[in-house]
């Protein structure tokens, strides 16, 4: 177990990642409680996304991609469940989960590279959401792997400003999720 939470760069999602879909009370400091727990227990967070949940102002859903190599999943879930503001934890193994994330990237262009960017955009299923004479902003909502692939392709264009949301997930229909 590493003493520090792993928040650095990685090339791809760790192989032993798990997705925890966590329903929490929408109260001040809840995210700090979760982040603090992961930090002090040495659990690694790969990505984290938060949004109000299911039409309730009362609850939020936190989707945490955890590195199940940094600590046994049972430990992570057990400790997380002890947080009083955590209402429900659904553990999604990657094969049982439908995962999506959103990528935005502003790519510098000139006359010669404009077509290349459009080509990459078309090939990867991304779309153009903003254009200026010197750059173009593309967006992809897709699987983490598709976002990884687009990110790699865009590297060729030099100084790219790129943001990803971290993934959200739901169980695949017909799959049993374990609590």
């Amino acid at each position, binding site marked *: 177990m590493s003493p520090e939470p792993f928040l650095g760069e990685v090339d791809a999602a760790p192989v032993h990642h798990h997705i925890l879909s966590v329903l*929490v*009370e929408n109260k*001040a*400091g809840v995210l*700090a*409680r979760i982040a*603090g*727990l992961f930090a*002090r227990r040495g659990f690694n967070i790969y990505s984290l996304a938060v949004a109000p949940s299911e039409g309730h102002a009362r609850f939020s859903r936190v989707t945490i991609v955890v590195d199940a190599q940094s600590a*046994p999943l*049972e*430990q992570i879930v*057990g*400790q997380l*469940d*002890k*947080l*009083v*503001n*955590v*209402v*429900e934890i659904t553990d999604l193994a990657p094969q049982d989960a439908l995962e999506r994330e959103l990528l935005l990237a502003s790519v510098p262009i000139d006359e010669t590279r404009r077509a290349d960017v459009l080509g990459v955009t078309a090939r990867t299923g991304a779309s153009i959401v903003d254009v200026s004479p010197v750059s173009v902003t593309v967006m992809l909502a897709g699987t983490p792997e598709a976002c990884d692939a687009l990110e790699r392709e865009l590297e060729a264009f030099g100084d790219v400003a790129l943001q990803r949301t971290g993934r959200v997930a739901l169980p695949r229909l017909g799959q049993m999720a374990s609590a």
Partner: protein
Amino acid sequence: MQLTGAQALIKSLEREGVDTVFGLPGGAILPVYDPVLDSSIRHILVRHEQGAGHMAEGYALATGKPGVAMVTSGPGATNIVTPIGNAYMDSTPLVVITGQVATASIGTDAFQECDITGITMGITKHNFLITSAQEIPRVVASAFYLATTGRPGPVLVDLPKDIAQTQMEWWYPESIEELDLPGYRPEVDFDTHALARAVELISASERPVLYVGGGALKSNATRELLAFAERTQIPVVTTLMARGAFPDSHDQHLGMPGMHGMYSAVTALQKSDLLISLGTRFDDRVTGKVSSFAPHAKIIHVDIDRAEFNKVRRADVTLQSNVAVALRAMDDALAIPQNLDVWWKEIRSWQERYPLVYDEPAPEGLLRPQAVIEAIARSAAPGTIVSSGVGQHQMWASQFWQFDEPRTWINSGGAGTMGFGVPAAIGAKVGRPDRTVWCIDGDGCFQMTAQELVTARSEGIPIKVAILNNAYLGMVRQWQEMFYEERYSEVYLSADLPDYVKWAEAMGCVGLRARTPAEMHDVIARANEINDVPVVIDFRTDTSEKVFPMVAAGASNDDIMVHPLLRGGQA
């Protein structure tokens, strides 16, 4: 009925059955101290906020009820962080009220502002920042519910000054549903399949041990433990946090396991084929090197907190349950191991060969600390409560005092907080005024929190403090002697500075001193006759005395070092 937030807070404490609050006022908590004057609750004015926290812990450990402390914002709040951390490590139910600067000032670096909910996030079971006076009853009721149910622990309630001064319409939650804790479920479904597997493992075992931790005391499982142990004849070990859960005088009790545990207790765990682990968390002080801990044992792990399962040692059966409930269920299922005659014969041979021993005092020498503890124990009334600080004296107290009742051993286990002993003894005495309370302390520990004897004297709390004064930070000295080639770095304290007798007298206590065995018996007899004021005894003990047995940090329990007097026969 209209009340101020402050009045509502005190009234809420009364509704929770609180009879004592340990605290010290200051700016942000000022409004709350006004209704204290009109309350039935006894407030004990401490001299330092750390004292309030440890007193509340001592009260909780001695009574089983939650301890309550109240302090102001900023430094008042940070001063009580150590007791909160201590209570968290030892799962002690505690409710700590802190004043906070007015809501409008939060986040502005106002005078005596600090983010105490942020600071204590990792060392509380939960904490609250109250945002409306109307919510005070719900928050206080929730704090007590959280602190005392499931795995107990400390809960902090931070109350901004303006909210204490705001009017609210009095109400109080009548049911758990009104607490609004959708994520908290302390009750768990009893897993009958796990029980069946546990019974199977017990039935197959030939060398079982009941490895009993603090959870047995928290769940008041003493009777169930005795019944189960006697019916099954399984040997029992009690960890530092569980001393008193099973009578030391009982023939089946092997004593404390761990770093300074009894040879027979440590070795029984090592040689066992089944550990029935009850409310215990495989702490590193018990397991030593984890990979060689009880290598042949299957594990049944009973705990109310499922996050303890497979954290340190993989269990063969996990049973999430209150210890008392699990023991009753195992007893009802008539779980019984194989014939244990061979196992007991082996254990008896270890007990015979490696008892607890210490050197006889040299004719001219200083007192043996172990002899002091034995002398106090022999003259103590049954049911006497013992607290301690942390270090050598703590281990000797645990080893040489006979604990036959639950809640008679008050100590800082997980956190190892020096200075715990004196304030914890005061809290225990407040909770159990009918009992004699001794604090077995070290000279280093005593100096950390001794000022609370002023509190004890002024509040009429007659505890007795035995300082085992060896002029050193003894446990650190022991490690430097054994593992740092006798290079003693910053451990010498002096036996004469401070003068403990004068210090005790200055605090309104009786101060006594003993250097010889004759003086020792004399001062103990005198201390036992004094029941109106605190007594402090400066016992001059031998510096070179070390705690044995010992398993070195990180070493295997198989490499336990026994007392030098016993080493002749050891391979």
